[in-house]
């Protein structure tokens, strides 16, 4: 991708790169997300397609406007904000009103990304911040779940999706509870097979664990994602859940349920690995993943809400600079004892 410039570019190290630039990475993330997105639209129909579309458009437009407004060159060309928008769309309920989708997208990009300085500066994952804002602002629509694979889901757009801006949605689609809500409030555990295949309800893109995992493996194979973060999250959650289930199998679900339910898969693979908001060192990544895993288990088992992946990742985002400060790579040539 080398490109000749008529100017001599001078910059600080590193000078040796592996040739990947932001847009190449983003293209690969997009490829990894493609099956997940396709499955989401297949499972939830036209509502989900509209939600994903509006989410992406709102994020891209916000970034474009803000760049124009502040007199900076527009940064939408590197696709990073489009990926943020796509991810943001994938973690929303499929029958969320489009105006709320838009509000959250604007909030996420403007507050979590742009106010912190734009690409490469965001302390928090912008998609998750957008969702967290919606969760706080509109708790009812954000905990309303459409039944997957409903009849006529492609021809019929749920009325709630087309709610008038600033007006409450009315629901006509068949609703259901998410596996995690069933666990929390009913003490029922969904079967692992259903969860993996995406037969349960949930946010647009979080239901099919296997496809998400495949996307993650693709990114790891292309060396575009730090595999230590999801691995550490999975191991922590699995180990803790296994121990609790051993202690009391009636109250606590098994590791497979915990790994494949809710937003854990999507969060661990695509959100926690946000290159900017996660730690730099490998040891730091392990620690960061363990923190997320611990928080997820704590929130899911003892918290007031059924799902905690979003808050777990946001909290770990906040801690990640401190992890970096705690675990600094040894400067080449110095010993362990010297500083």
């Amino acid at each position, binding site marked *: 991708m080398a490109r000749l410039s008529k100017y001599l570019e001078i910059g600080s190290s590193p000078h040796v790169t592996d040739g990947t630039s932001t847009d190449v990475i983003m293209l690969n993330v997009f490829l990894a997300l493609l099956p997940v997105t396709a499955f989401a639209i297949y499972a939830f129909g036209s509502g989900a397609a509209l939600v994903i579309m509006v989410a992406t458009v709102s994020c891209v437009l916000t970034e474009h406007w803000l760049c124009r407004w502040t007199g900076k060159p527009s940064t939408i060309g590197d696709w990073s904000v489009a990926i943020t928008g796509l991810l943001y769309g994938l973690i929303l309920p499929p029958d969320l009103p489009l105006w709320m989708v838009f509000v959250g997208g604007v909030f996420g990009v403007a507050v979590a990304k742009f106010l912190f300085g734009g690409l490469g500066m965001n302390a928090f994952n912008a998609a998750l911040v957008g969702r967290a804002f919606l969760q706080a602002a509109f*708790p*009812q629509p954000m*905990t309303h779940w459409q039944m997957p694979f409903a009849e006529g889901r492609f021809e019929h757009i749920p009325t709630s999706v087309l709610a008038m801006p600033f007006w409450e949605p009315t629901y006509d689609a068949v609703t259901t509870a998410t596996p995690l809500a069933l666990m929390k*409030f009913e003490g029922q555990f969904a079967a692992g097979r259903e969860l993996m295949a995406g037969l349960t309800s949930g946010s647009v893109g979080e239901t099919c664990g296997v496809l998400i995992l495949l996307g993650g493996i693709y990114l790891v194979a292309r060396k575009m994602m730090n595999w230590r973060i999801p691995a550490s999250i999975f191991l922590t959650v699995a180990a803790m859940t296994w121990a609790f289930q051993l202690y009391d199998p009636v109250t606590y679900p098994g590791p497979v349920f915990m790994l494949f339910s809710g937003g854990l898969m999507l969060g661990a693979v695509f959100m926690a690995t946000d290159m900017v908001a996660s730690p730099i060192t490998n040891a730091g990544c392990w620690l960061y993943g363990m923190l997320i895993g611990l928080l997820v288990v704590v929130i899911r088992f003892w918290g*007031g809400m059924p799902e905690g992946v979003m808050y777990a990742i946001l909290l770990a985002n906040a801690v990640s600079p401190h992890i970096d400060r705690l675990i600094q790579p040894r400067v080449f040539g110095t010993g362990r004892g010297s500083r």
Partner: protein
Amino acid sequence: MNAPAPIQQKRTSAWSMYRAIVGIGAFCALLIVTVYEATAERIADNKARFLSNAVAEVLPASRSTVEVTLNADGSLVAATEPADLPVFLGYDENGDLIGAVITAQGMGYADNIRVLYAYSFGRKVIVGFKVLESKETPGLGDKVEIEPHFLANFEGLDARLNEDGTALANAIVTVKQGEKTEPWQLDGITGATITSDAIGAILNQGSSAWLPVLERDGRAIQPPQPTQE
């Protein structure tokens, strides 16, 4: 800067500091006592009116009330001073005992919830309900105060005692919205599961503690003199 020079600072004697602090302290104490004396009566009035309004809201048929409390030996007596969680007996215009109003509290989703509810001696049911204090999430948990189908539970929530009158015949419990099958069950609110569960637990706890005593000794309490009107 108009800060005094160090030399001036040294001249501040202990006496002048003492004088200033004691003087201001005395002045402040006087002021607070004055304001307290001036407002005490209205504050007591306001508090009493707030509570009696709430009592009238949950037990509208009552014309007069007597606050009751438990004696050291566990028997019911008229209270001499207001309790933290007061319990009242309500009488109609003929001085007949019609119901009891019970204050109860328990942990909700965000913080303690304090509620006031009425028990009808005639129908053996809980008939009125009002949240006195809650910090539940606006839009979700606080729906227990306004949601019509939840408030409909209190048209007659079964609170019969068992045969020897020592406990509730059926524990009051919250069930999922739309799954109420028994008269002692509270039809919960989807999206406010924790708060509506908490209300059930609070009612159950308050009723278990008070209803056996009230049923046993309540009729022996002297109704207030009708001159109060």
